């Protein structure tokens, strides 16, 4: 990894009597895809808003490209916030062109990009239509287009797939992969652990304003148990001091061997009379780590 694009050090955020972020520090490096994870209310959006200058931090350093973020000065940013919306009374092309201009594009370039993008997402015939006349899915496509205008070197996507239909989710993932291939730095704030495992180089797990895990996906998996076993068994697997059951549903179990050799674990299970249908040593899933850190309720959120 090279230079850090985002640098957060000793960040505290207080709203009235409530301390939302408590001494958070992390870096995001150029060209990496960074997963910023946490349950609802853990402080992810607050951190991003403070990073982007919307909130004034109570204490700490929050830098983008070496200095506090300033729109139009800190380099091209593509930000897809959790709260989404555009100027509903305006036409698609006018709205996109306006944002393109604000992001530093010439009027002609903004218009050309907008029309090309609308062609790509099959909305070319809607260019002159007011946004409020578009379906929710079509509005999402326009919002994505605005986010990636002027070739942003830093993309911050807050709950990017929230409310997206499968078609738009695929479009979004395609765009993320395109931007990643083009060398952009991407910060994803999400609950979708499969996407994190597939796309992210490094992650940070935030709980109650404190970092609970930070590093590459493999480092975090190691930190929370390293190798685990996914097995299918008949009946219910009994509790034991030689292993820990991470999850167990309808015969599908995820077992932490507590550092022991997995062959010894298999021998132990068979000798205790458990009928084992499949047995696969693997790295622990981020999903199960997430459940362990935040509890089942967080997943329900």
């Amino acid at each position, binding site marked *: 990894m090279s230079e850090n694009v985002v640098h957060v050090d000793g960040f505290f955020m*207080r709203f009235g009597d409530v301390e939302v972020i408590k001494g958070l520090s992390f870096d995001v490096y150029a060209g990496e895809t960074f997963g910023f994870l946490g349950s609802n209310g853990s402080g992810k959006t607050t951190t991003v808003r403070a990073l982007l200058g*919307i909130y004034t931090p109570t204490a700490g350093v929050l830098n983008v490209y070496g200095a506090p973020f300033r729109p139009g000065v800190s380099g091209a940013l593509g930000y897809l916030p959790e709260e989404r919306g555009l100027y509903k009374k305006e036409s698609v092309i006018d709205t996109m062109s306006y944002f393109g201009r604000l992001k530093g594009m010439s009027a002609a370039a903004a218009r050309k990009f907008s029309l090309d993008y609308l062609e790509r997402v099959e909305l070319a015939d809607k260019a002159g239509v007011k946004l409020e006349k578009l379906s929710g899915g079509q509005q999402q496509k326009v919002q994505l287009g605005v986010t990636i205008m002027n070739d942003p070197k830093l993309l911050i996507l807050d709950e990017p797939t929230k409310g997206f239909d499968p078609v738009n989710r695929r479009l979004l993932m395609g765009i993320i992969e395109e931007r990643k291939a083009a060398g952009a730095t991407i910060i994803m704030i999400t609950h979708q652990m499969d996407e994190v495992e597939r796309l992210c180089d490094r992650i940070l797990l935030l709980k109650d304003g404190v970092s609970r895990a930070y590093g590459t996906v493999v480092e975090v998996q190691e930190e929370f148990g390293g190798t685990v076993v996914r097995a299918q068994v008949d009946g219910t697997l009994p509790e034991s001091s030689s292993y820990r059951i991470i999850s167990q549903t309808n015969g599908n179990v995820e077992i932490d061997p507590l550092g022991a050799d997995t062959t010894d674990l298999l021998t132990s299970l068979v000798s205790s009379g458990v009928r084992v249908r499949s047995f696969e040593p693997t790295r622990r899933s981020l999903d199960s780590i997430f459940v362990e850190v935040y509890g089942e309720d967080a997943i329900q959120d």
Partner: protein
Amino acid sequence: MNSNLKTVVGFEISRTLKKPLFWVMSLLGPLGIIAIFMVSMFSSMSGQETIDNQGEDAGFTFSYVDASGLVKPQIAQTMGGTAITDPEAGISAVKDGTLDAFFDIPADPSVTPVQVYGVDIGILNSMSYESVAKTLLQLSVQESLGDPKQVQISLGQIPSESTIYRDGVETGGFMGMIAPVAFLVLFFLIIVLLGNKMLTSTLEEKENRVTEMILTTIDPTSLLAGKLISVFILGIVQIAVLLVPTVIVAAVFPQVIGLEGFSFSDLVFEPQAMVLGALLLLAGYALFAAASSAVGAAMPTAQDAGGAFSAVMLLSVMPFWAFMLIVSSPESLAVKFLTYFPFSAAITGMIRNATGSLTWTEGLIAVAIIFAAALACLRLSVIIFKQGSISYSKAVNLKALFAKR
């Protein structure tokens, strides 16, 4: 102007000008003026016709009893009137419809009213009976005077010209007041026509959930300044649409709007009054707009913002209630306070500027105070907008906002 500011101004202006509602609202005023003009023209023509008729024939038959002895029978005859001696007979003839009107002229018409009786020919037309009775007396008395000069003077038609000096320098007098008053009228029209637009200019981002996108794309000060500049420009467009027909009517048909004898070439433009008027207008607009946008940024909807906005509006127009005091006692403590209190300073200053009681120094101090307050309000507006607009459906808790800072 930086490029983002220009982009915001361009976007805000072009999207508003594209809206049919903007033009409908803007053209309502001129259409109203044209309608009033047409009605006035029609009335004026009818009135002229009536007056012409009055000199010759009233257009109806009437009889009269003249206890004053002022009426000239030949004039009455020309107008279609006949002298009688019995008022009761005249009234009876009107009642049974054999006579259109009867006038009972008392011994002293300057004290005792002339009694007019007539057959109903509609409310407006029936009023012409009184008009004819008065004209009959007026023409009879004028003939008695004989000399046209005496007639003109007796009618108060006395031309006069004034030359007024301030500190030994000739002032424009009444004609010098008109242009500075125009700034006051402009300011009043702007806050009345555009107050709501200023208020809602910061609500739109919040209501459309576009705040975060926009705040990470453009500096909020540029965004708000761009919005306020564009509202001002749109206001000028709207006022121009409103005023151009008025000015045309005033220039071409001054009598229709009661400006007989008025000519734009008579207007006097005093440099000091014009400069101060323009500065007070700009500063006053900047403060009103910045304060309105701060209110809009703090509240989730226009409805919620109504109360606080009314307070800003009342503070701004407060000097109109003290108009007589401002004109008659410009040196009083109360007027001094109104001159330098930021929210009342613009209108107070403009009234004093028009009436010639505002000095350069006083005017420039007032302008500086208003601009300083406008900048403070804009700064406040930016702070509230940044944090308040992402509260989306909640009003901003100012106490918590500033406690945190």
